[in-house]
């Protein structure tokens, strides 16, 4: 979240789309209800399903799954064409005035630079037009036809209310009603928030979807203000933290994993450190060398020296264009190109797309280690045929599966220390309350014991890659049982000359005199102690920032981009919506997202970006600098804007023998997956009360479709996709209205996720059905808006 849970109470309009907080984040949702109660805020809910959030909304508009960019693009068009944008904000704080090159274009669903053979773009024509000093040229009047504002206006001119209605299947009048309320925040004195969750991330165009939402919020001047922002309601206790700490192609703190062509630390830093694109850009990522060098010092300690590039060569390098995200490596595992796999508290058979492919992939391993609280579908994958009954009838018998499996019992949250990061970016420290059951062990001890045992084998026998393995610093007081307090102190970073904890990332150096395990967490454990464990109740701004409760990254800042809550001269856009204020010599209030004592005109308001301002237009994403509506990879209709470029041209779709994509003639219905408030993911099927409250898997069907098929509530139905099937009783409701799209009636089928073949209660895994189709930027699978058929059994 740019803002935070408590801050939602400051909003005037809450748009909930791609999420259902009343059901899935009920305690956080109380802040929406507080805004409604205390500020008469309006709640707008856009979703294929009339869900629990819709039930308490002021306005609900149904839409077809996978068409969110069309809806949001329509809002951009509505705001611009009805003169509802906060134009002073747009001029002061965005790249709307920047000029594009004259060879940039868009037609028939493709931007300039499209290479149909490589299925990717040459981005040269997407760049800004630069002046002689390397800065972007701008037109402050926004009238130049090559300005981003004019290009954006033209790009979304196609997204009229009628076109939105045609694509999304909603009614143009309903769209306009929602647009009027949402765009009412496009002026000083009113602010709107956007809340989303996996309903936005589970698409083959998910990153662009969130990009569209950010564009809308910038047009309305809602970024950086209390009660505003783009707010991801994250679905698990520490997936924000897991993202911060680096996975896939990242090092901790959003530093990029080096690639083979970055042959030295210098080459890596040159490639990953941005240059300012405007004279007043602070370009804070210009400090990348300090963050990267301090991380290397944290990893390699005294072995990291200037002469050896601080150990940079020991880090693994990706190939120049290589992608090792989920879809790609499970595909390699399926092809027997991987031999071993370790799962620390994750359950790929349940969580990954196309369950049968997951099962086949794991059966192609030599060995598998699973570290868990409970037996999972992944740990017992070799027994899926017996446990999963009819859904895996083609799957092999255990006797034919040669994978060696070791299942290790781990401590749960209550049995170990450490910090979780909630959606508000608050790092909250928890303490171990009891020891783990039986002879289970805490995860950090399991990691340490395995790592030390591997190193002991190398020490004894020698082997490949010994230098990089032995170079990793592991100097904990008890190497087999490191204390998490010790680790947290290492993550914060220290001054290696004095041995003191650094006060924050501003103290980090690129000369090897500081260490830091994750620069965005620097400040979490200073000489003052463990700031994550703070319990202060003060709220001096009255905005619900609680600056002394826990610790928020970065720098204990509670609202990101808060400089933008003031105009160019440093005056709040409105007295009620500024979390920082300029008193003539410094900024007061929240920790400023700006230099604390720099005048309002010294820098652009968005200090992290090389532009110094927020971006409507970005060259960083795979499929275009502006978001465009593309259909899901399986869709019941062709794209109404450009039928020949129907779905995302850059989205990866796997093609192994276990993969298949369906077509609407065989699979005519649009499926969505969702959570229920009684369950948490695939865990609470092990918990008695969850098992009792929602014991049974079910399939939600619209009344009209059920009638057409002769299905009554409680009848057992089979849902099938090109990948697999699920079966369960039908729950016939009026919650998913039939939608008319391109002259066709479109029905949705809703399937809850929480069951599996291991648990106190059991049921089919919804991912039996889902496709191995992914977003090209994030690698996230398309779990919303895939095609299925339904039959009565």
């Amino acid at each position, binding site marked *: 979240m740019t803002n935070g*849970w408590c801050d939602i109470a400051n909003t005037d309009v809450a748009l909930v789309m791609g999420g259902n907080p009343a059901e899935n984040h009920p*305690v956080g949702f109380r802040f929406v209800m507080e805004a409604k109660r205390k500020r008469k805020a309006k709640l707008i809910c856009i979703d294929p399903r009339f869900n629990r959030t819709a039930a308490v909304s002021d306005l609900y508009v149904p839409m077809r799954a996978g068409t969110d960019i069309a809806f949001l693009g329509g809002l951009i068009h509505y705001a611009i064409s009805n003169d509802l944008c906060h134009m002073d904000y747009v001029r002061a704080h965005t790249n709307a005035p920047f000029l594009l090159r004259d060879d940039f274009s868009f037609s028939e669903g493709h931007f300039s630079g499209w290479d149909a053979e490589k299925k990717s773009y040459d981005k040269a024509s997407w760049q800004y037009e630069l002046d002689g000093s390397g800065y972007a040229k701008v037109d402050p009047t926004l009238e130049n036809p090559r300005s981003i504002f004019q290009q954006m206006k033209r790009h979304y001119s196609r997204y009229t209310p009628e076109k939105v209605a045609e694509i999304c299947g909603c009614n143009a009048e309903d769209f306009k009603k929602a647009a009027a309320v949402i765009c009412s925040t496009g002026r000083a004195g009113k602010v709107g928030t956007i809340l989303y969750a996996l309903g936005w991330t589970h698409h083959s165009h998910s990153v662009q979807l969130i990009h569209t939402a950010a564009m809308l919020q910038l047009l309305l001047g809602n970024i950086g203000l209390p009660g505003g922002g783009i707010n991801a309601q*994250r*679905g*698990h*206790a*520490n*997936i924000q933290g897991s993202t*911060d700490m680096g996975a896939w192609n990242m*090092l901790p703190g959003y530093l990029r994993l080096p690639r*083979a062509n970055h*042959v030295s630390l210098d080459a890596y830093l040159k490639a990953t450190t941005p240059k300012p694109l405007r004279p007043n850009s602070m370009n804070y990522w210009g400090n990348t060398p300090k963050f990267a060098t301090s991380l290397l010092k944290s*990893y390699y300690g005294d072995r990291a020296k200037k002469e050896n590039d601080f150990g940079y060569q*020991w*880090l693994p390098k990706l*190939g120049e264009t290589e992608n090792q995200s*989920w879809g790609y490596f499970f595909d390699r595992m399926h092809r027997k190109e*991987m*031999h071993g*796999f370790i799962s*620390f*508290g*994750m359950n790929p058979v349940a969580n*990954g797309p196309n369950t049968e492919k997951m099962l086949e992939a794991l059966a192609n391993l*030599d060995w598998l280690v699973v570290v868990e609280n*409970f037996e999972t579908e992944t740990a017992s994958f070799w*027994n899926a045929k017996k446990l999963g009954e009819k859904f895996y009838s083609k799957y092999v018998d255990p*006797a034919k599966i*040669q994978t*060696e*499996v*070791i299942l*290790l*019992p781990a401590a*749960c*949250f*209550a*049995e170990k220390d450490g910090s*979780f990061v*909630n959606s*508000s970016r608050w790092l*909250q420290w*928890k303490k171990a*309350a009891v020891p783990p*059951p039986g002879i289970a*062990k805490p995860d*950090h001890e399991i990691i*340490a014991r395995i790592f030390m045992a*591997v190193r*002991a084998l*190398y020490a004894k026998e020698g082997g*490949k*890659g010994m230098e990089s393995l032995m170079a990793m610093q592991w100097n904990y007081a008890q190497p087999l049982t490191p204390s*998490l307090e010790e680790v947290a102190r290492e993550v914060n970073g220290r001054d290696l000359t004095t041995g003191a904890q650094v006060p924050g990332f501003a103290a980090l150096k690129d000369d090897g005199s500081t260490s830091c395990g*994750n620069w965005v967490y620097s400040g979490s454990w200073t000489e003052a102690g463990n700031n994550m464990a703070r*319990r202060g*109740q003060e709220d001096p701004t009255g905005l*619900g920032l609680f600056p002394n409760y826990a610790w928020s990254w970065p720098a204990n800042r509670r609202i990101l981009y808060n400089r933008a809550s003031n105009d160019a001269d440093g005056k709040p856009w409105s007295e009620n919506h500024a979390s920082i204020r300029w008193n003539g010599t410094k900024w007061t209030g929240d920790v400023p997202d700006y230099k604390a004592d720099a005048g309002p005109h010294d820098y652009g308001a968005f200090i992290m970006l090389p532009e110094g301002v927020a971006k409507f237009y970005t060259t960083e994403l795979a499929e275009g600098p502006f978001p465009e509506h593309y259909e899901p990879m399986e869709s019941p209709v062709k794209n109404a804007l450009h039928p020949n470029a129907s779905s995302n041209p850059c989205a990866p779709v796997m093609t192994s023998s276990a993969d298949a994509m369906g077509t609407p003639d065989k699979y005519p219905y649009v499926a969505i997956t969702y959570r229920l*408030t009684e369950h948490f993911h695939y865990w609470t099927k092990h918990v008695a*009360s969850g098992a009792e409250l929602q014991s049974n898997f079910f399939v939600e069907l619209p009344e009209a479709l059920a009638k057409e098929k002769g299905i009554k509530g409680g009848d057992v139905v089979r849902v099938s996709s090109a990948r697999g099937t699920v079966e369960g009783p039908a729950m016939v409701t009026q919650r998913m209205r039939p939608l008319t799209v391109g002259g066709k009636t479109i029905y949705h089928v809703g399937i809850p996720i929480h069951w599996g073949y291991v648990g106190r209660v059991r049921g089919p895994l919804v991912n039996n059905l889902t496709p191995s189709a992914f977003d090209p930027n994030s690698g996230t699978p398309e779990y919303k808006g895939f095609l299925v058929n339904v039959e009565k059994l």
Partner: protein
Amino acid sequence: MMPQVNRRQFLQAGAAVTATAFGFRLEGASAVARELKIARTNQVQSVCPYCAVGCGVVIHTSGERVKNARPTVVHIEGDPDSPVNRGTLCSKGISLKEFVVNDRRLTKPMYRAPGSGEWTDISWDEAIQKIARRIKDTRDKGFQEQDAQGRTVNRLDTLGLIGGCTDTNEINYLLGKFRFGLGILPYENQARL
């Protein structure tokens, strides 16, 4: 503004003081009832492991002072001092005790041999040794010090690693060191699905 009294101070005030400090208001009476329920427990501050609202919870345990017994969780409730949840919890959070104290929890390492149809017990030492051997053999075979162009890459892509959604930051940091020490490239997390 009302003086801020956090929950611990409130309870510390105790039943005897309640009458004078709080009169006979309902809050006082319910606090007495609460205190009886949790009178002999230890309290530990924690955070709910489910969704990322990040509700503060208080875990009540007992058995720390009992000979030959392991301390156990007897009650988990919302933390009134948390600005996020102010003592409230959802239907999942309120039953967290059943998650921790649960007869389905794994209590010992288990082993499934290639081709076998069942789990057998294995000791920690043997399990760790087997895993270390597997990792070393896989790495010896698959580790690439240089790529085809002779560039140093120190990478391993035949061994994958994934992390879960309640791994703390500190565990994730250690997993990162484990990953980069071994040179593992395929590394994903629940955060990205």
